[in-house]
């Protein structure tokens, strides 16, 4: 799920940027530092939308770096159990398949794949229904449900299932027609 929220961060800026474009420099550095990171508390920071305020800088002794407390608005993404996500399959093997929904890696183990889909090894490993109408392979898009989330300090990993109504492959041309 996505959230728009205000976060705070202490930015350290090298003395060489002290000058007329200090604020722009600070913002670009913030975006570079923060976007794409993952905190266990808030999830993935997807984008910084606005810098709200930049506090007074504090010059650190010895190094000359200046620490600015920065408040910024950003969009964060955090998966929850029970959430439905759309994801792209990245890897298929006998034990199940891996998929990515943005920054999140999701594993769908083979017992969470409907029973009528069987694993086909070969050049392109895939899961296929007995009539061959539905196929899950690399780069397929699937809709899945999160049934477990493991949140580490800097990583989030999910377990998903496609064994439920309306879950499964969604880029099937027949389905969109």
């Amino acid at each position, binding site marked *: 799920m996505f959230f728009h929220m205000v976060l705070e961060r202490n930015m350290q800026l090298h003395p060489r940027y002290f000058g007329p474009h200090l604020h722009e420099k600070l913002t670009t550095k913030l975006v570079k530092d923060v976007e794409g990171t993952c905190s266990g508390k808030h999830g993935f920071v997807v984008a910084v939308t606005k810098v709200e305020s930049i506090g007074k800088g504090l010059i650190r002794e010895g190094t000359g770096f200046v620490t600015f407390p920065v408040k910024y608005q950003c969009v964060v993404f955090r998966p929850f159990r029970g959430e439905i996500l759309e994801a792209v399959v990245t*890897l298929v*093997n*006998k*034990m*199940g398949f*891996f998929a990515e929904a943005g920054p999140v*890696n999701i*594993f769908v*183990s*083979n*017992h*969470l794949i409907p*029973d009528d889909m*069987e*694993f086909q*090894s070969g050049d392109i*490993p895939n899961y296929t229904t007995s009539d061959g109408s539905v196929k899950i392979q690399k780069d397929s898009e699937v809709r899945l449900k999160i*049934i*477990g989330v*493991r949140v580490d300090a800097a990583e989030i*990993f999910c*377990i998903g*299932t496609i*064994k439920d109504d309306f879950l499964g492959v969604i880029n099937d041309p027949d389905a969109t027609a």
Partner: protein
Amino acid sequence: MTEPFNRLVKLAARAFYDDFTTKGDNQPKTGRSDNRGMAVVVLDALTRRQWVREEDLAKSLKLHTKQLRRTLRFFEEEKLVTRDHRKETAKGAKIFSAAIAAAADGQQVGKEGDEKTKIHTHSYCCLDYAQIYDVVRYRLHRMKKKLKDELDNRNTIQEYICPNCNRRYSAFDAMQLVSMEDEYFHCESCNGELVAESDKLAAEEMGDGDDNSRRRRREKLKDMLQRMEEQLKPLTLQLARVKDLPAPEFGTLQAWEASVNAAGRGGNNNGSATDASKSAQGQGYGGTPMPYIGETKVEVTIFGADVKDEGAETEAATASLKVLPPWMIKQGMNLTKEQRGELRPDAKVDGSEAYRDQSDEKKQEQKQEDVKSLEEEYLTAYYEAYARMLEASKTAQGEAEVSQQSTSSYLNGVSDTNSARQVGMKVKREDDDDGGIEWEEDVATGILNELSIVNDPNAQPDGSGDEDDDIDWEEG
């Protein structure tokens, strides 16, 4: 009263604790040390008791105290049994004995002579029926949930296990486990191939976890679920039966002792009056432990208990009062007068005409020989009366019909046991000796009564009602 709960305990014991053994799995099971089934015996014994000292229980079960204690501790963990330990002197222990004695024969053990100052820790245990009900339900729920989850693999995080080093992984570790060489997960420490762990329920036929075996496992689970449901059906039925009943509550050891002591003391004052209540609440379900069973009262209590037991066995058929079978009534006939009085207290509630008739009949049955000489007279009198009656009843027919209905319904309503019993008795008699005359006699008494009041016009419909009642019985 506690019978449904006791049955629940017994069923649960047989279902879940039948193969419980206090020995560890690693110890070799010789024939001697194999104590499977002991748990069931202990639980059964506890259903016949309330609070009981563990030593006493061990003694009566002829078990070693240690063995019993181990079993009880297990049940305590399983939340079936509440236990209480307290340090007490020999005198303190006597309080409990007194409580038992009070419950058993209504007498206080007044003697507190030789007091030893030595302090022992005594343990007491008691079934916790309310909790047992919950525990069993929870257990069933968990079993069902586990199987169902397994069956449709819903929301279960797959676990993987390394067959070499037994290291376990969950699906959350999948990212680290995937290897580039082949399509299996590999152990981080020994690089062995991991096996999906949920296959343990059907481990025998699990080969490499391909789809075929997945399907087989499903079938096996389905079968298992089905078997579980049908095999535990008695238990679930009993649970449903018990659902709305209040669980028997004995309270804490102290509270129980106090209440039982109080009841015992009250019993002393009332004398025989407590016998009935005791048989109802105390020994009726074998509630009080063993050592002091009053010998004199045995007969009465056994009778009461018998009735109860029979009720328990046929309880599926009827929850209402039972109609005693004829053989039982024959026995009952031979019983003493008090017992007869005890059997029919409900009929006394309203002493009406019909009831008096019944009692008259009873008396006559008892002194049947005396009556036999009078039978002929009754017969003649009856026919006369009957002839007169027919005329009279023609006039007052409408009235009579109403009252007859009411009386007969009243008779049926009074007590199924009583009227049925009497019918049974009479039928029995008929077999024994000349039944036809016997019947006339009954009818005749009815008529005699009527004759005595036949001049009273108000009594007429009543009398006819009586007569009809008699005829009714004859049919029954």
